[in-house]
């Protein structure tokens, strides 16, 4: 039976099963299934997962056995032609673009988009990861979403998402990729705003959608450029046209485009990836996306959808190899984002937001690895994608379990010491944290080490100092990662037990249906890394992907996957352990040191009115009073005018005395001077390292001022113009036919003789007019 199912069938089944699950849930959910609405989804996803595993195993059997690098293996199943416009584009020889000039005699090219599915090792990897995690998350959601009024809606969206995601990684055409890229975007939008009655959730959904539009715009431009340059949008070669990532191009028959155009294509692709994978400067939507249900955060905004950008860049790697500057940009954006997000995560109090920034940071890691544009780098990036999916999903689900127990409270200052109340969550969360921090021998250690090794190799190979800086940034991020992960861990599970009143009687371990996925994920998070990387099996498996094989081929002997470097491993482990140790030192005890550190880093010493205090144990209300929780809040130290005291002790304030005017002038001048003097102090509140981190480097505020505000103004102007000018015109013109009709219908009086007369008059009129016109 196993042999009887062909690759083609499996490839079709994998997306088809979630799709049918989504449709069934949507049809039968509201009225018939109700509380049982999860069944189509869970069963569909599980079946899809089994199909993916079977596919991977079968595909393993089809790989060449000699294991030589540089051999790409793929199979494309074309289902039907979606769009076909013959002779759509005649590339002029004058453009002289190498990619097209090499095609046959400048014949006009057909614009053709097939719905074709592909299988290679990259796709198989993604399919296994996506379906496995989504199945576990779906099971978990059965418990987490229990009793929600949108129960069926949730599972329908979830299935639809998995359909889009599996299609995204399976299709073999850039336009189809774009279609499903948008498809996952829509599902993400729907699920972020799942609780649409909550204004914050609705706004977060909108924000995610709009920020992604910016990236997608770049992606679309990349596709246009690619079509103009390569004359094709297929990955693979079709019978008439050579694909962008086709075998003929890999075989060296046709070239890849480098130079300005190549770099532009790659940078625009990168813009798309930045949007989807939340890289600077388009990372702002991901933390807000945490307004969605936690399983969604785990599945879409940590494990799967956000890695679509990484997948896409890995898929397009040959283009980046042809445009090394673009790859360099990818590396810098990745490293920068990783560091920035790590810094932000240090000071967040919202457990899910810490994890969200951690996701941004880890995605930055992956981009850094891809930016190396070496086989070692790409396989390391994909490997990190793979392991990260497991432990980050685990962490999010664990956070969800905490939320579940704490009555949806997620502020870490309001609970603590939960390890006795939530033993399983505690244990699995610990495994996730260790993996994320990169402690030997858990998954994260192996993949993070692979990335560091790839950067290290590249730094050695090129000798460029920029790669050394990148290596340093990556190492620093590793330290931050270990620190903020364990900060969150200790704050949540250690210290004196504190439970918010919202929790009520819920403060106990989650039901079985929720903790079993946690345990399974914990097993994966612990074991996937060592099992796959001990022998470099993952990298060897992945290098059969055509676009990566081409890279190995190009690099020749040095293209082997990054070797294990003892020095890198030891350094990174030491850094990670230092991070964990610091977190333990600061958060396991009295946290007096934390307060002291904060006092230093938020420039508290510049403001004498503030004394060091126990910030993190204070309630959020207290923190709000101190104006540090919200970026929108005003700092405490404003231009405090000494004379402006409400006590009214200043005599000349009373009565319209002769000196009233000069006194007021004096007061104004005094206030101005005082403000000027305290300005640095005031600004210091904003730019202190602590405040920078806590306010996420003010990126949202900068966008508000630079983009949102002006656009809103423009929108208002357009609205007024539309109302007054356009509507007026339209209504005026629209009234004309009515008036004309009102006049004309007077001729319809119902008298036959009148009709006869009018007919004859009309005839004469027509003849006369035509006659005069003719002459």
């Amino acid at each position: 039976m196993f042999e009887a199912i062909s690759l083609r069938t499996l490839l079709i089944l994998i997306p088809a099963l979630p799709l049918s699950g989504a449709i069934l849930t949507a049809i039968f959910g509201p009225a018939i299934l109700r509380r049982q609405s999860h069944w189509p989804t869970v069963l569909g996803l599980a079946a899809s997962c089994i199909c993916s595993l079977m596919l991977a195993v079968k595909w393993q059997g089809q790989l060449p056995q000699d294991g030589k690098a540089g051999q790409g293996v793929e199979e494309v199943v074309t289902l039907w032609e979606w769009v076909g416009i013959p002779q759509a584009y005649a590339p002029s020889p004058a453009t002289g673009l190498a990619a097209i000039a090499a095609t046959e005699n400048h014949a006009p090219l057909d614009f053709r988009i097939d719905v074709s599915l592909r299988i290679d090792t990259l796709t198989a990897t993604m399919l296994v990861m996506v379906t496995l995690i989504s199945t576990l998350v779906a099971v978990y959601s059965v418990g987490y979403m229990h009793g929600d009024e949108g129960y069926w809606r949730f599972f329908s969206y979830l299935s639809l998402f998995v359909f889009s995601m599996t299609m995204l990684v399976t299709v073999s055409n850039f336009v189809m990729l774009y279609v499903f890229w948008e498809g996952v975007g829509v599902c993400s939008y729907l699920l972020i705003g799942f609780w649409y009655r909550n204004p914050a959730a609705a706004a977060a959904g909108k924000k995610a959608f709009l920020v992604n539009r910016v990236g997608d715009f770049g992606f679309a431009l990349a596709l246009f450029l690619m079509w103009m340059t390569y004359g094709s949008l297929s990955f693979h070669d079709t019978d008439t046209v050579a694909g962008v990532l086709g075998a003929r191009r890999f075989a060296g028959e046709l070239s890849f485009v480098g130079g300005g155009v190549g770099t532009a294509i790659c940078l625009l692709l990168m813009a798309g990836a930045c949007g989807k994978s939340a890289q600077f400067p388009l990372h702002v939507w991901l933390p807000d996306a945490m307004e969605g249900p936690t399983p969604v955060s785990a599945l879409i905004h940590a494990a799967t959808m956000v890695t679509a950008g990484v997948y896409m860049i890995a898929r397009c790697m040959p283009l980046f190899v042809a445009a090394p500057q673009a790859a360099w940009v990818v590396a810098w954006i990745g490293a920068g984002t990783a560091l920035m997000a790590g810094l932000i995560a240090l000071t967040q109090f919202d457990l899910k937001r810490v994890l969200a920034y951690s996701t941004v940071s880890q995605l930055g890691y992956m981009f850094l690895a891809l930016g190396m544009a070496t086989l070692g780098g790409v396989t390391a990036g994909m490997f990190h994608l793979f392991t990260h999916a497991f432990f980050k999903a685990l962490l999010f689900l664990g956070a969800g379990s905490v939320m579940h127990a704490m009555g949806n409270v997620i502020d870490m200052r309001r609970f603590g010491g939960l390890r006795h109340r939530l033993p399983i969550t505690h244990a699995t969360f610990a495994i996730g944290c260790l993996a994320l921090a990169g402690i030997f021998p858990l998954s994260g250690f192996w993949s993070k080490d692979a990335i560091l090794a790839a950067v290290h190799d590249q730094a050695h190979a090129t000798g460029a100092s920029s790669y050394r800086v990148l290596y340093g940034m990556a190492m620093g991020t590793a330290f931050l990662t270990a620190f903020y992960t364990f900060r969150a861990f200790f704050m949540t599970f250690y210290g004196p037990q504190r439970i918010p009143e919202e929790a009520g009687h819920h403060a106990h371990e989650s039901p079985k249906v929720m903790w079993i996925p946690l345990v399974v994920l914990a097993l994966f998070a612990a074991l996937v890394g060592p099992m796959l990387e001990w022998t470099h099996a993952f990298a060897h498996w992945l290098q059969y992907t055509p676009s990566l094989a081409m890279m190995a081929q190009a690099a020749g002997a040095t293209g082997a996957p990054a070797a294990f470097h003892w020095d890198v491993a030891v350094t990174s482990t030491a850094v990670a352990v230092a991070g964990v140790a610091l977190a333990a030192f600061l958060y396991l005890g009295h946290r007096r040191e934390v307060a002291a550190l904060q006092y230093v880093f938020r420039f508290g010493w510049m403001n004498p009115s503030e004394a060091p205090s126990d910030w993190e144990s204070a309630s959020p209300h207290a923190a709000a009073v101190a104006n540090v929780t919200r970026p929108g809040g005003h700092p405490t130290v404003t231009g405090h005018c000494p004379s402006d005291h409400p006590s009214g002790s200043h005599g000349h304030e009373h009565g319209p005395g002769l000196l009233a005017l000069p006194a007021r002038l004096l007061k104004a001048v005094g206030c101005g001077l005082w403000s000027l003097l305290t300005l640095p102090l005031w600004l210091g509140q904003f730019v202190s390292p602590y405040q920078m981190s806590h306010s996420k480097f003010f990126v949202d505020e900068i966008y508000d001022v630079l983009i949102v505000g002006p656009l809103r103004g423009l929108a208002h102007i357009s609205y007024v113009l539309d109302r007054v000018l356009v509507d007026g015109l339209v209504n005026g013109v629209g009234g004309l036919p009515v008036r004309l009709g009102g006049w004309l219908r007077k001729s319809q009086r119902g008298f036959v003789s009148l009709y006869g007369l009018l007919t004859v008059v009309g005839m004469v009129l027509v003849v006369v007019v035509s006659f005069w016109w003719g002459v």
Partner: protein
Amino acid sequence: MPTSLDMLFRMTPEILLIVGAVWIIVGNAFAPQRAGWWVMALATVAMAGWALAQQGMPVVPAPSTGGESVHVGSADADSVVVAGLAIHDELAQAIRWFAIVLAFLLVVMASRAGAESLFGEQLGSILLILAGIMIAASATNLVLLFLGLELVSIPTYILLFLGRANRQSLEATAKYFLLSILASAVMLYGFSFLYGSTGSMDLSRISANVREPASPLGAGGIWTMGMVLVLLGLSFKLGSFPAHFYAPDVYEGTTSVNAALLAVAPKVAGIVALVRLFLMNSMEVHPFLWHMFLLLALATMTIGNVCALWQNNIRRLLAYSSIAHAGYMLIGLAVALAMWKTSTGLQGASATLFYLVVYAIAVLGTFAGLAYLASARDEIQDVEQLAGMGRSYPVVAGALGLLMFSLSGIPPLAGFWGKLGLFASAVEAAGVSAAGVRSPWFLVLVVGGALNAAIAAAYYLRIVRTLFFRSGTQQLAPEGGSGARNVAVFAALLTLAVGILPGPLLVATRNATCGLNRDRAPLMVTAAPVSSGHQDSIVTRP
């Protein structure tokens, strides 16, 4: 030279229809029962269809779908039979088939129409009218053409009279009768001019005798005057300006089945007659003639649409709408007449035929829906009466909604392709310079047409809104019979099907017109790039 037996064979469908009609009319007087005669009428139509099938279609080579050009001419001369006064070419056969389909739909629709004792006369009249269309479609002689057109008109008088026997109905009948006679008289007057100027009743001879460009005041002046009079007389059949006045009063006063017949049958006959008279032969026409078509098109569209805006009575509204549609069809004929030397002309003519078919089906379905919803005593009159239908009769209301969308020309329905074809041909006419007849006036025509389409959408969508988004105030008791409902649904589905796959009908209408310029060089048919399933073809001359 065909023998008279050949000619008889060729006319079998018409003969069958007429014999069946007479049989039904006479027989019903003795055996007044509904079902039997209804089946008899259906059988007659089926037999006529069978007889028509025996004759086969003139063979038109299909254009290849490849990128290269192929020669596609009109059908072989052998497969076109000229039988006495009639010619059975592509156009004739296509219209005759269409008439059979219309006859079938109308008979099905009329299953419950009228009083039982007069039911036979109702059915017989319908069959006679369709036979008239078929005769008009194949006539090459002025006498036969007139006969066909009168066979469309005279049973209509009876039908109108057979409607509901109330004052309104009688008034409508009288109006139609008087104005129809006036129009026929004008047309006959025109025929006499044609005969007088050329000395022949035969259409091909007529044009052969007027080879040189005819100016209204020059040598061909009499001939041109005749054509003008014929056009004005036929404008009654089309329901176009300046003889459109009867339509609202008559549609309002008669039954839905009759209104459907009035909106379809005379228009088909009129368009075919115009095509035959003006386009059948490759005569050089004076710009005077297409100027007139253009003016008539603009005036008709505008009058129909702006007057429809005011109507609360759905029957008057549909009457004005049918006037407006006649105006759209004249666009294509204007293009055809002005550009007949070029492929654009052919495009215009075939676009007109396409529009005719699409319009006929849609308006038939609409009236069928109204006929179904009507009670035994009263027809639907006010638009308001339709309120809430979307909830109480979703199937019929859905069909009506779809047909309204099609009539207003919203994709992906058939009406969209109809308007697209007409406007496209006019745009091309405005841009073509090969024949030297280029005229920016066609651009005016297109703009006018587009504005009119926008105006039209207002009142069509008002009906849709009433159907679905207004709560019903009164309860209707649909007593129009399931036949009418089935026709409405069928028409809606057909409209949708043609909208999604317009290819076959486009090819059929183009084939129907390509026999008209038989004495030309073969046409070059180039398959245009296929865009989104719309298979159109550009026809160019080598």
